[in-house]
C-alpha cells in the first residue's frame, strides 16, 4: 500500500489536504460503482488521516505489514499498484519500451 500515491497527496500534506483528497477520490470512485478502488481509497485514508497516523507510519510504528517488502522491485511494484489513475508514458518512452 502507498496511501500518498493512492490519494495523490505529497508526503508533507496536512490533515486538511488529505481529507480533501479523500473526499475527491470517493466522489470519483463511489463504492457502488468502484468497490475495489473505494476500498483502496478508504484504507489509504485510514492510514494517513491524522498527523499521528502519518508520523506513526513514517517512524515505523504503524502500517508495517503493508510497508515491508522483500526486495526493491516488490516495493516499487506496490507503488505502481497504488496508482489509481496511471498516466501513459511519453511517446519516446513508449517506443523505448517497445524496443527494450
Amino acid at each position, binding site marked *: 500500500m502507498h496511501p500518498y500515491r493512492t490519494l495523490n497527496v505529497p508526503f*508533507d500534506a496536512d490533515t486538511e489536504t488529505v481529507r480533501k483528497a479523500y473526499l475527491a477520490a470517493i466522489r470519483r470512485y463511489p463504492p457502488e460503482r468502484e468497490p475495489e478502488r473505494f476500498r483502496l481509497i478508504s484504507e489509504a485514508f485510514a492510514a494517513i488521516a491524522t498527523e499521528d497516523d502519518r508520523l506513526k507510519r513514517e517512524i515505523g*510504528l504503524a502500517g508495517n505489514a503493508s510497508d515491508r517488502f522483500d526486495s526493491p522491485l*516488490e516495493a516499487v511494484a506496490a507503488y505502481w499498484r497504488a496508482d489509481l489513475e496511471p498516466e501513459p508514458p511519453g*511517446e519516446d*518512452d513508449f517506443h523505448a519500451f517497445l524496443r527494450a
Partner: protein
Amino acid sequence: MAKRKKRRIKRRKPAEAPANPEVVLRRAEGQLAEGNPKRAREGFRRLFKLDPDCYRDRYVEVTLLVIERALSEGRPKEARQLLNHLEEIGTEPSQLRALQTKAAVELGEPGAAAEAAAELVESGDEAERIEAADALVLARAEQAGAVCEAISHLCRGEWDEMKAALQGIGRRSPFAHWRLFLRGCAAYYRADPREAERCFRRLPPGSLPARKSGAFKVLEGDWQGVDERRITEACLLSGEPVLAKLLPAAQGRWLSKRFMDAYRVLKRERAPFPCLEVSPWGQLTRFFQLADMEMTGREKDVWIPALLKLLPLGGRVEPGCESYLVCSAALREMVGGWEERSIGELLWPLYVDSRERLLGSSARFVAMSHFARALHEEPEEFIVNPFWPGSMSPSPAEFEPAIRALKAAIDADPSFQDAPLKLLSVYRRLRRRSEANRLLDQMTKRFPDSKEVLFEAGRACLDRKAHAKGLKYLGRARELDPVDPGIRAEIRRGLREKAVAHFRKGGEAQLAKGRGAFEELLASVPHHPGPDESRGFLLIQWSVLEELANGSEAPLAREKYAESASDVPPDVAQFYRAVQHEVFGAGSRRGRSTSPAVRLPAPSPREAELSQALQIFKLWMKLEKDFDGAAPIPVMFWIEQYARAAARKLRREDRGLVLQLVTQMRHAGRFWEDLAGEIILKQLKKDRRDPHLQCMAWIYGQRPPPTPAQLQEAVAEAVRRGDRDALEAIRRFEEMLPQARARRPGEPPPEEAVLDADAGLDGVLEEEIEGMPEGMLDALFEFSHDERVEELIEAGVDRRQAEIIADMIETLLEECGGAPPGSRPRGGTRSGSGPRRGGSQLDLPF
C-alpha cells in the same frame, strides 16, 4: 639497438583430406538427425564446395536451420553473418527476408528491419507477416503509420483520436494485433484492467505486443519471478527511464544479499535517491529505511554497520535525506549494549535535525520517536516453558530505559496521549500503583475527552472498588465510542460488581440499587456471552443474592431462578447456584451451612454429559478466584464426581470435548491434572493410535516419555489423519523434551538425557515393581494389556499405576520385538532397550 624481430612461424593448416562425398553426406545427415545442424552444416559446406550445383539446396536449407537456432538462442550477430553468406552465394532473397527481419529486430536496427519487412508484410505467411509488421512498427516505418499515430495519441491520453487512427487497420491487416494491443493499453490507462487483460489475452502468441503486454502485469502487481528485461520494460512504461537502467541491477544485487551494493546502484546516474517524494524513488527510500525489519539477525549485523559508513567519520554530517534514512534504521536496531547506546546518543540529534530540515520541526515527531524507542526498550515477559504456567519477569531496573524514554516523550509533546498510556501500562506491570494512579489523575485532567484515557481511568476505579466513579468514566467513554466491545465488557463487570456490593451491604435501599444494577445488566447481555454472562447465569446470581440478603423476597428469587432455566442446562445451573451460595453465603446472615443448594447430589451417570462437564469446568476456572485459593470441598467433590461420571460413558465422538477439557485442565493444579489424565486414558481406549490423545497422555505423565521412534510414529499417524492440531501439540511437546533440547542438530540424543527424562516415572514405579511377588512380573508379559491391568489391581496396585506399568510392558515388548519374557533382566524397566536411545532425530513435517 635494433629490435629483433621475432620470426613468426606460420603453421600450415593441414589440407583437408579429400573425402568420399558419400561418406561425408551420410555423416552430415546423421548429425542433422541427431539435432546438431551446426555440425551437419560443416559437412554440407564441404559437399557444396565439391559440387555447388548438386548440394546448394541442401546446404542452404541446413544453414537456414542454423540461423533460426542462432536467433532463438540470442546470437543475432552469428545469424547476420550466415545470412550475408547466403546472400553472397546467390540464395533467393524471399527465402531470407523473414530471418533478415528477425535478425535486424534482435540487433536493434529498425531501418534494416523495415527494409526487410516491407515486402514480407505483403507476401509472407501469417507468422512472417506479423513479425514483419512488428519490425515496421519498431522502425516507425511509413507502412506502420496508423499504428504510430495511434501510439502518439495513446501517450497523450487522447483516447478517441487513438480509436480513430486505429479504424483504418482492417481485421486481416498484418497490423491487426497492434490494434488489439493499443486498445488494451488504453484500457489499462483508463483504469479498466479487465478490458486490458481481455485484449492482451487475444494477442497472437510470440508477437511483439504479446511479449510486451507482460510489463502491464508487473505494473498491476504481478512481479513474482520476472526477469530483468521485464523490470526494465515496466519502468519504461511507468515513465521512469533512469529507474529502468538501475532497478534491475539493484534487484539482482539485493536478491544475492549484496544489500549495500543494491543501495549504491540506485544512487548512480544522478538518480533522485534517497528522497522523501511520492515517487518510485521515495518508495525505494522507504524500502531501505525499513529493510532491517525484514532481515535476519546476521543480515542486520552486516547491513547496519554498512549503512553507518555512509556517514563520514569525524567530519560534520550534513543533515539530509540519507542521514535521516541511516539514523532511523540504525536507531531502531540499536537497543541493548552500552557501546551501541553511545552511538545512539550521537545519532539522535542528527536524526532530529535531518527530519526537521526535510519536513519542518514537529514536537509530535520527537515525542513519537522517543515513544518508538520506549517500545523497543521495554522488556518482554520471558516464557520459561510453553507447556507449563509461569514466566520469568524482567527486573524493575530493566524497565528504566523505557520509562526514561516515555517521560522524554511526554516532555517533548504533552498532548501526545500514547506516551502516558504506555507509561501507565509499564507502571501496572511493575505494580507501582501510586505512580499509576497519580499519572491517571493527570491524564484525566489533560485528556478529558479521550476514550482511551477514560477507559483506563474507569478500569482503575473498578479495581479500587470505586464502582460509581468507574462506571461514570466508562459511561463517558461509551458515549464517545458506543460500539467498543472492551468498554461494554468493562461496564458489565462494573455493574455486576456494583450489584453484588449493594446486595452484600443489605438494607432495602441498597437492595433496590442492586436490583437496578441487575436490570441494567440484563439489558446489556452481549451476543456472544462469556462463561457466566448469559441471561440465565445473571438471573441465578441475582436469585442467590436475593435469597441470601432478604428472606421476604424469596418468591422473586424463585421466579428469577425458574426463568433462568431456559438457557442454562440444569446441572450447570445447579452447580453455578451452589458456587454462588459458597461465594456469597460465607459472609451473609444465613451462611453457607443452611443453604440447601450447597449439598449437591452425586450425579447419576446417565445424566452427566461431557459437554456440561466442560462448561462447568470453564465456569469453575473463572469463579475459582473468588475463593482466594481455598476451594470449598463440596464443590470440588461435586465437580470431580461429575467429570468422572461424564467420562464414564465416553464415546469416540467425544474426542473433541475431551481434548478441550483436558487442555483447559492442564494449568489447573494437581487435582485437575490427575483427573484429566484418567479421562485421557479412557478416551485412548476408544482409539489407541490417536496421536493427539497420545501426546496428551505423555504430557500428563499417563504414559512413559516416548522414544523418538514413538514420537515419529505419532507424527506419521497425525499426518495420515490430517490432524494439524495433533502435529502442533507433538511439535511443542518435542521442544519440551529434555533430550531434544540437549541435542544439537544431527547429534544423537545423549543417553543421560533420556535416562533423566524417564527417571522420575521410573522412580515412582520402581517400588511397585520391586514389591511384586516373584514371577509375577514375568507372567505379566504373557497377558494382554487389559489383563495386565486387572492382574495388577488384584495385586493391590492403584489403577493409574497399573495402567502405566501395563503400558510400559507393552512398550518394552514392542521395542524388544516380542522377546521372550525370560530374556528380560529383572529390576530395570528401561535397561537394554536399544531403539529407545539410538533413534534418529525426529523428522517433523512443518
